[in-house]
């Protein structure tokens, strides 16, 4: 199970069970903790629905009490190839 975190201005941005594009950061222990990815994913307030866990922070870093499960469908490459 992977642990992820997302910043949103409103939890309404986390529509359940539809394809979303989110910038999430890993909370898995290790040197790469807190690094980000842009992903296509689905989330659910049912914590058992998807394998990974997602916690939420609001605009000024406040930790939300809401928790979600998340399924990462794939990584989205936004960066132009010339910078790779």
């Amino acid at each position: 199970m992977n642990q992820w975190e997302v910043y949103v201005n409103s939890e309404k941005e986390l529509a359940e069970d539809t394809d979303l594009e989110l910038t999430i950061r890993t909370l898995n222990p290790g040197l790469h903790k807190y690094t980000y990815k842009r992903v296509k994913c689905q989330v659910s307030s049912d914590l058992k629905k998807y394998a990974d866990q997602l916690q939420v922070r609001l605009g000024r870093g406040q930790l939300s009490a809401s928790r979600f499960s998340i399924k990462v469908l794939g990584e989205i490459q936004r960066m132009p190839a010339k910078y790779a």
Partner: protein
Amino acid sequence: MAAPRSNREFVEACVKSGDAVRIKQEVDWENEAGAIVRRACELAAPAPFMEKIKDYPGFSYFGAPLSTYRRMAISMGMDPNASLPEIGKEYVKRTNGEPIAPVLVDRKDAPCKENILKGKDVDLCKLPIPLVHDGDGGRYVGTWHAVVTKHPVRGDVNWGMYRQMMFDSRTMSGAVFPFSDLGKALNDYYLPRGESCPFATAIGLSPLAAMAACAPSPIPEPELTGMLAGEPVKLVKCETNDLEVPADAEIILEGEICPDYKVEEGPFGEYTGYRTSPRDFRVTFRVNCITYRNNATMTISNMGVPQDEGQLLRSFSLGLELEKLLKSQGIPVTGVYMHPRSTHHMMIVGVKPTYSGVAQQIGQLAFGSKLGPWFHMVMVVDDQTDIYNWDEVYHAFCTRCHPENGIHIYRNSPGTPLYPFATPHERKFSIGSKVVFDCLWPTDWDRINDVPTLVSFKNVYPKDVQEKVMSNWTAYGYPAVK
């Protein structure tokens, strides 16, 4: 005492004088190191030199490098007990001289080249980048550092302290305000042309190089560092671009600012004492090379409520640079000071009130200068008020500033997105408002009959009575006054 030439010499000098402590037990890069630095700032305690970092053997942290005036005095090679006016006088003396050009040294003489990571080896996570505050948008690489760039046409070098967050292993994002030197270069040149801007981030600078990077001086920072130190700063060529960086810095990140790609940055706890600016897409830095010293030390500034070096040093240099500007314009100023507790938002100017409108003239010059976006209040007091004594300044403000005639507001001026009071729209577009508090008695009042007399021990009793009372103070039964 000579000024420390490097961060390492500075740490040693601070440990020796009791202004830094060596922490030998392991410290976690995730929150714990930041919390130590924050608490040290809030207690005005010695700077923490953390020798053992979880997951990062061989690296260390030095936090709160210049968050006290004692450490500022040490950084300038002065007695740690030097008073603030003495430190200020020395700063003005050194920075009013001839610029001292840097010297270029060979790579083999540059400690920052002891380890070099290029290509696939580049990974910011190999460095102990701290999570400074819980809830920050990321691990912040740059909190006490210099982002080195060069203007593509004019060629002038800029060292600026633009915060930088690690986004992924090779990408950082940061807040670069549009009125800053780098902001202007990006908006004037690089972004319209779609060209990448080479940059280098230097971390673990000598304290005077960091002071120069923080100072809003018109003198280029490498020269300013030399003037402050009394000798040329040593620079070395980067590995992957033409920039030159301080040879004795602990860590160097080289790369390019992307003109056509932005990632999210923030939020981040800032010098105002708040996390104010929203998470947003900001200037994005792609890292192509990392070089660092053996046993490198990462410097951490943990900004928040007063007082940290963000407030202390910026207040110090903004005040002194404004004093130089006002004097160059012939304004009869007697001193300029920002109390760090104002989080460098209020400029206090002492002046001989010899003509009408001088307070507004000072405000217009201050707000209209390069310094202006960083503060929004100017309080003008007379030369009888001690600008360093907040009790006196506050008394003058509350009693002499006329609520209608003494407050002058300027709308739609440059501001920073970090102003906690600003509306979301103002933050987004760096729009500010400014105010002058004129605490001078009007010059058209009769000095004898209209101006009130200050009723204080110093002001209303004859000298001989004052001396008698002071010399008999303990005989009256009071404890001695220090």
